[in-house]
């Protein structure tokens, strides 16, 4: 079998692009179910809108082809079949066009396709304009087994339903008929389903088809509620700067709109009602399938509904430098202060340099470890020159260490062994440097600091262990989420009298109500602790409101960048004894702080 035809998990040789980045389309052999059922403003298919010599769908298929998609089923309405047929055969993908009458049939077809497709299946909307790299983040990232492409809540300018994620996993998703509490993302209409989750997809699609054929009342209510919200949104926009008092929710469906806004609300409702992809996502989430979230990052995304929209999208998209965004997003979004401001600004260019020369992240990891070992030797020398050389080398090792992660994210070259090596070598470097410093202290400074060195090692290992085990406990909490059955619009039972947010107030009847909590006159000791913990937590949370507060919280815990900087500075300027005392003092305070914060967090639950 030729390489390009192999099924799941194939590892084709990296192909070079104009930028010289090696691309690894690990989704090679994947199949797609492209849903092109959304109408455009002119009544045609939104996916068939013309775009620079091709169509929106045509460009999307070309992009997916370069990402390893080999077969696709394109689902559309009978009246658009010819228009779609005419545009899909330009790409290298083997396309079959299927016509379906309505949402119910869409879902049945989805179940059939899911049963037929080999390997990974991508369920996608056909009417999307976005960067190839955004899709690559979902399709070509081997860490995403099954997952979705998500964007900020504003992404898609409201044409996408919301989702809630925790720890990079989808915990709740919205659809025309399902709502999400406390949403923090938009689902952008790309859903990657691994072979292992195929049965769940088939079952969910069948169940959704049954429900869509005879829509539960809560579904109808939810769509009405959403339409009313869109109407309110347009009405408010039309009021301009007056900002009148918002009317009662009961008034929303009757708010007066001009013809254009009326057409907008009607189109949005029609598009929503065809959204099989969002429904399938809800189906998977509520059957407890583990779905990773791949972020849009700063790439472009739009669902144009007219030719003018398409032209605007192309203009806006061409203003974004795709490679720059890819490189910038290869830098960890949340990292330590020192790493963010003193290393990442230039290490990303080293990462790109490495990518262009075909160097792998594992090679960089090894180089970093080697430099770290040389730094330890320099420290062991014991002279001032040795200390300064060690300090500089340690910083060089740390920079290369940041490069390997950025290089891996930039080229999407992730391996489990690589991740293990990276972590173990990080620790190895640090403790080797401790040993080097202790030897150097004896040789050059006449200090016996082995006890301090051992104590610093013990403290750091215990602190890391605390991080690991606390995260383990948190993960357990996410896993314990129970999902509502699909016929419910709400994603969680609403507590009697205490809705999670005001919007949920009217959804109270549809969910089973747990018994009301018994009233207790005097707070017990436990309740007092919980209350106190919540107060402390709120105070700690206040720090997050300011930039400096957020950084302060991150610097306090002495992350790796700060640790290595502390070692370099104190060793170069003072002596190994000062280094270890500084590490123990700051590390000890960090341990106290994170332990207290975590105990408070636990108590507040």
């Amino acid at each position, binding site marked *: *079998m030729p*390489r390009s035809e*192999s099924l799941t*998990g*194939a*590892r084709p040789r990296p192909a070079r692009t104009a930028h010289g980045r090696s691309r690894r389309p690990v989704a090679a052999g994947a199949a797609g179910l492209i849903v092109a059922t959304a109408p455009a403003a002119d009544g045609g298919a939104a996916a068939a809108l013309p775009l620079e010599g091709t169509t929106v769908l045509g460009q999307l298929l070309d992009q997916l082809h370069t990402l390893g998609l080999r077969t696709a089923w394109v689902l559309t309405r009978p009246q658009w079949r010819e228009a779609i047929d005419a545009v899909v055969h330009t790409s290298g993908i083997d396309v079959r066009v299927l016509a379906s009458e309505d949402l119910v049939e869409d879902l049945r077809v989805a179940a059939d396709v899911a049963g037929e497709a080999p390997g990974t299946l991508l369920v996608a909307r056909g009417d999307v304009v976005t960067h190839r790299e955004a899709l690559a983040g979902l399709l070509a990232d081997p860490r995403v087994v099954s997952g979705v492409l998500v964007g900020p809540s504003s992404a898609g300018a409201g044409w996408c339903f919301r989702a809630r994620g925790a720890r990079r996993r989808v915990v709740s998703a919205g659809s025309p008929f399902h709502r999400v509490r406390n949403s923090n993302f938009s689902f952008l209409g790309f859903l990657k389903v691994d072979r292992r989750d195929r049965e769940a997809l088939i079952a969910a699609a069948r169940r959704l088809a049954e429900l869509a054929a005879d829509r539960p009342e809560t579904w109808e209510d939810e769509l009405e509620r959403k339409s009313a919200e869109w109407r309110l949104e347009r009405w408010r926009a039309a009021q301009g700067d007056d900002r009148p008092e918002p009317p009662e929710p009961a008034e929303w469906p009757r708010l007066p709109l001009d013809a254009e806004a009326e057409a907008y609300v009607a189109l949005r409702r029609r598009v929503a009602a065809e959204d099989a992809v969002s429904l399938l996502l809800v189906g998977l989430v509520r059957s407890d399938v583990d779905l990773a979230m791949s972020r849009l990052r700063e790439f472009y995304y739009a669902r144009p509904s007219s030719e003018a929209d398409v032209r605007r999208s192309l203009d806006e998209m061409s203003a974004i430098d795709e490679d720059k965004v890819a490189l910038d997003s290869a830098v960890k979004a949340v990292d330590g202060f020192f790493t963010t401001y003193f290393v990442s600004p230039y290490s990303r260019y080293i990462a790109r340099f490495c990518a262009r020369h075909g160097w792998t992240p594992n090679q960089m990891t090894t180089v970093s470890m080697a430099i770290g070992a040389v730094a330890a030797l320099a420290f062991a020398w014991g002279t001032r020159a040795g200390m300064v050389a060690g300090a500089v080398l340690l910083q060089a090792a740390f920079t290369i260490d940041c490069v390997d992660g950025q290089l891996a994210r930039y080229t999407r070259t992730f391996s*489990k*062994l690589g*991740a*293990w090596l990276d*972590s*173990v070598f990080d*620790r*190895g470097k640090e*403790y080797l440097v*401790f*040993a080097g410093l*202790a030897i150097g202290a004896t040789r050059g400074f006449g200090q*016996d600091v*082995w*006890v301090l*060195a*051992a*104590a610093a*090692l*013990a*403290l750091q*290992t*215990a*602190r*890391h*262990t*605390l991080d*690991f*085990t*606390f995260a*383990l*406990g948190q993960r357990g909490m996410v896993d314990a989420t129970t999902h509502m059955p699909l016929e419910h619009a709400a994603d969680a039972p609403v507590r009697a009298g205490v809705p999670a947010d005001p919007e949920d107030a009217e959804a109270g009847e549809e969910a089973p109500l747990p018994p009301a909590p018994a009233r207790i006159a005097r707070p017990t000791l436990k309740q007092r602790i919980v209350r106190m913990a919540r107060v402390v937590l709120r105070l700690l949370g206040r720090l997050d409101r300011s930039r400096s507060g957020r950084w302060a919280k991150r610097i306090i815990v002495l992350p790796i960048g700060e640790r290595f900087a502390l070692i370099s500075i104190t060793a170069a300027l003072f002596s190994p004894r000062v280094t270890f005392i500084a590490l123990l003092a700051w590390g000890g305070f960090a341990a106290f702080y994170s332990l207290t914060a*975590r*105990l408070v967090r*636990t108590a507040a*639950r």
Partner: protein
Amino acid sequence: MTAMQVYRDDGPLGALIGRASRGVGMGETTLALVGALVLGIAAALALDPLPLGALTALVAVAVLIVAAGSQRPHTGRVAWLVPPLLRGLEYGFLIRLTVLADRDAMPLCFALLCVLAFHHYDTVYRLRHQRVPPPAWLRAAGGGWEGRMLAACVLALAGVLGPGLLVAALALGALFVTETVVSWVRFARAERPAALGDDEDDEVQDA
């Protein structure tokens, strides 16, 4: 066995004590805290007048208390405290004991701590990346935190803590590193056929 229990790194003795004391009503975190307190006070008091024999006895008591929780599932709200506490307990005690018994052996103590840290990080990272922890026999062969602490006491009593630390660091280091390398080779092999079928082609071409 839960991940939290794997992180504890109990040896055969700890497991035995845990099984024998299933009926004890206290939770795993309380037991660990009480045990750590006992040993912490002992180590603090163990200025030169406290004989090593008495210290060893106190270590045994602490081990009995802490290990009693080893067979619990660690589902308590603050069970995440236990593994870091055990790390601090073991490493801190080894340092204290070396300072008391043979201060010159401190570099060797540091070497052993490096080996133990490798083992403990390896446990976490392998569980994360291979999705399986190191095998149970490895934890047994390592002696567990309680086994290593008691062994160190015995070595100190016999007056051979320095050589003992050296042998332990070399033997355990060789064991832990070799086992990891073997596991990664095996992991890479096991993953290959599932990921790709075209490696056989390469072999055919090579032949």
